[in-house]
Every structure is written in C-alpha cells, then in structure tokens.
C-alpha cells in the first residue's frame, strides 16, 4: 500500500498575526513555522500506522522553498519513508493542487491524504481539487480509516453525525480528529530522517486562479462588560436589547 501524504508548512498556532507592505503581505518576522497540525497528527500518523500494520510506504510531499526542508525532515522523523519538495512558492490552492496531482500521477499511490484544512488559510480546498485533477473519489473529514486489501472503510463527519463509507483504492482522503494521536519523533527517528531521500522537483507551469489583494485584522474587541453574578436579568436584557442575539 503506497501512501502520499500532502503536508503544509504553516505559522505556529500561537503566532501573533500581523501584516506588512500596506497590509498586503503576511509578516513572517519571528514566525515559528510548523507542520500543519491536521496534516501531521491525523493524516501522516494514520498513514504510518497503516504502513506499519500492513506494509507499504509513506511519501510526504510539500510545495515550497528550501526553508521548508527542516519541517519536511520532521515528517520523515515521525516515520515517513521519503519526501518530495516541489520547488516553488506555494500559490493559490489550485496552483498547489496542480503540483501535487502532477507528482501523484507518476507515483501510482493507493491513498493520497491531506489534513482537513490548514490552520493558516482554513480553505479545505487542495484535497478536493487534487481528487478532481486525478479523477479520484474524495472522502473528506475522515475520522477513522481502516484498510482491507484494496478497500477502505472510512468514518466521515457529516452535519450532526457520522457516515460510514467504503471506497476502493486509489482514492483521496482528508483527515480530521479521531484519525490518530500525535506522535513525537524519537532520537532514532530524527537521526534516520537525515538519511532519508528528500527529492526536489521542479514545478509544472500553472496559473493561479485567485490573488490575495489585502489582509485585515478583526476590529479590536471592546472591553468585556462585567455583569454582577447576582443580576442575571441584566445580562439577559443586554443580550436582547444591546447585542440583539436573543
């Protein structure tokens, strides 16, 4: 079973977000870059668990510059066998999906996995686009994944519940909570990661469909209005008359 796990490099969760150049660019100064948590904890770890149980291989792929290699090595330290870095600035979701689909075509992977979204743009776009570009079934927001020969049984989230679905390989899947538990790379993993192949490939020529023209921070919250705990009628009146939410 061959897994391709698509990983993004994103600002750490606790990053203070700010912008430069007249709010047209994300301020990368002092930003700690990490493996997108959903790609790491859910997609990558589950792929490694399934490889350990049934044999096969796990390849990770990232679209980005050489600076990303430190984070890609972490994925190798957790247990991926090899890595592909498409040497390009990640453009919009369509650009990234096109790069991944192009690399996936030559690898005959059984399962192409993503996290449910990135914590930076929260788009949930690249997985579905990659599936469409490859003409493959797509199961999104998977919270469980079991494999038996060429058939996967997947639990996916739906509004107000879960669905159990079956799909044959090859397919594309995006992973959500429940899939696996985070793994911390051990010393052996970190040492081995340095020797694992990290192949740098050139991008295919694709145009972006969209352009970010400006960023904006939410308006500063006005100070929290404190209500006397013995006067809940006042809170209810404020929610009704001032906030107008009830």
């Amino acid at each position, binding site marked *: 079973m061959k897994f391709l796990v698509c990983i993004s490099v994103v600002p750490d*969760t*606790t990053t203070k977000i700010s912008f430069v150049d007249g709010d047209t660019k994300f301020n990368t100064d002092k930003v700690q870059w990490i493996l997108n948590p959903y790609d790491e904890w859910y997609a990558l770890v589950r792929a490694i668990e399934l490889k350990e149980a049934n044999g096969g291989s796990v390849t990770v792929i990232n679209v980005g510059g050489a600076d990303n290699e430190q984070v890609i090595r972490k994925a190798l330290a957790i247990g991926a066998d090899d890595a592909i870095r498409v040497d390009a600035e990640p453009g*919009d979701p*369509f650009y990234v*999906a096109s790069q991944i689909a192009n690399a996936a075509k030559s690898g005959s992977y059984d399962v192409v996995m993503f996290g449910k979204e990135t*914590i*930076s*743009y*929260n*788009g*949930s*776009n*690249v*997985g*579905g*686009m990659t*599936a*469409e570009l490859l003409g*493959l*079934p*797509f*199961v*999104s927001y998977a919270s469980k994944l079991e494999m038996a020969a060429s058939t996967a049984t997947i639990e996916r*989230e739906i*509004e*107000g*519940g*879960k*669905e*159990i*679905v079956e*799909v*044959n390989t090859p397919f594309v899947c995006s992973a959500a*909570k429940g899939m696996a538990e985070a793994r911390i790379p051990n010393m052996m993993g970190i040492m081995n990661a340095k020797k694992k192949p990290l192949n740098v490939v050139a991008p295919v020529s694709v145009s972006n*469909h*969209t*352009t*970010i*023209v*400006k*960023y*904006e*921070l*939410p308006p500063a*919250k*006005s100070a*929290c*209005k*404190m*209500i006397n*705990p013995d006067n*809940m*009628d006042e*809170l*209810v*009146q404020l929610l*009704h008359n001032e*906030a107008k*939410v*009830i």
Partner: protein
Amino acid sequence: MAVLFYAEASNGKVKKNGLEAATYASKVAASLGTQAIGIAVGDIADSELSALGAYGASKVVKVADAKLENFDSQAYAKVIAEVAKSTGSDVVIISQSLSGKAIAPRLSVKLDAGLVSGAVALPDTSNGFVVKKAAFSGKAFAHVRIDTANKIVAVVPNSTGVEKKEGTAAVETASVALSDADFGVKVKEVKRQSGNVLPLPEAELVVSAGRGMKGPENWGIVEDLANVLGATTACSRPVADIGWRPHHEHVGQTGVAIRPNLYIAIGISGAIQHLAGVNQSKVIVVINKDAEAPFFKAADYGVLGDAFEVIPKLTEAFKKFKASQH
C-alpha cells in the same frame, strides 16, 4: 450570465445554509445585473423549491436521481457543473458546509473557476471580484480576488444571513447522466446524533462548558440552560478527551470551528486553541470564577462567579425573559 446557488437540503427541506446561499446569490446577481438560479439535488417537493423565490431565486433547477441519495462529491460536483453550464451561470455560490467543502473544490476544477472558500461578506465588485474570507483560524481576514471568468464562492454558515421577501421561483426538472463511476464512495451507514437541536456548525446559540464543571455528573445545569435557550451544547477539548462529554461536542481548533450568534462559555479558561474555534462568534459570554481567565479578554460580557450558582440564576432569567416574550 447568471448566479447559481446550491440549495443544500436534507430530508426534503432546504437547509438554512441553503437559504443563506440563496440570499447571498440574489444579492450578487443584483449587483451584476443578472438573475439568481438555484440547483437542488434530490427528491424535494416543487412547493419547497418554488418558495426559494422569497429569497431571491428566479428559477430552481431540480435534479432528482435516486442514485444521489448516496452523497459523493464526484457525482454532486458533476450535477452542479452541468447545471451551471446549461443555465449559463458564471458565478456559483455554495455553503462552506461539510458537503460544500467536498463539492466546491471539485467544481472549481471542473468549471475552471477560481474558488474563495470561507467567505464572510458579499463580494466587492467595484474593481474586479474580491471576496473577504476568514483566515489564520479566525485571527484575520484576507481579501481574495478571483481572476478567472467563472467564479465560485463558498460562504461560511451563519455569517451573511438569510433575508426573506415575497415571491416564488419557477421550478424545472433536469436530468444529468450519472454512471457508477461517479459514485466511488459508497455510504454504508449513517449515524445521526439524537435530539432535535441544530448541529454545532449551524447553531445560532451555543452553551459550552469546560473543566470548571468538575465532573460529567454536573452537566445537568448546563443542559437545562441550553434547553431553555434552544441552544446546542458544546465543550472544551480537555472535557472531551477525558470522556466527560462526547467528542462531537468539542469546539476549538482541533474540534469543530463554529460561528454562532451567541456563545456562552462556562468554566473554560480560553486557551488560544479553544479561541481559534470560537472567536468568530458574534457575541461571547464568559462565566468563570477566575478573574485571570484569558477568555475574559475575548468576551463581550463576563460574569465573575461560581458556575454552580450563576448558571441556575441565568437559566431562571432566560425563562422569565422567554415568558415575557409571549
């Protein structure tokens, strides 16, 4: 040229996020000087669809094929793409629901259309077509220009609102050729949560509690409050992880991200990972006995006090308020 919207439905009824898509589409259509057309999938009564006229639809195209009871993004994207082409639609509006998240990216490739997902406002069409979307887990917004002729906007549920006026829409039935190859994903079983409250991503009112409740046996007062309000219950991550509450209630970065009108947080300190999932709520009320709880900084209203004393009082106050409204 026209604006097509996906009238997402469940059990024969167009869902609230489908009405939001209709409202959004009719406003986009008005600004572009064209009409809004709905696409509905499944066995839905014509009267239900013609009622979409009140939300601005001039026409609704229905594709009812028994195969489509099985949700597969491949088949659904094919149906919507075909209808977009047959109606000459160059803009498609879809809810950023779980199914919308699976359909929209595929549709974007099929129609060669730029996609902005996570939209929280109408597009600015004064200079191109620019959509404001939530980014950085609710900590910022990005304004994204769609550069392609065809465009898709996926709108965050409960962000742009539903507006009902007068009117009825014409209903047409269309068929799209579907084969087994369009249904690679076979649904074997559907497990729905019991109860009749709205699922978290769609809920307007949410009552959420955390470790401050001290134990699962104390959740009765939280549920009472939620029942009186007609709110959906939620919880923080630690509480789901130790099994006090079911995992589907977990809101926050790793759980469900929500955007209700009112979020009441009880005994939750407000770690940054929790805030990432709830910071787009319109109004946040924090009840905590620790004055240093960081959540107060993100709150609109705060109550510094013991949850076990405050919640029953709040429930009573809501009861009184509800009674006075009748």
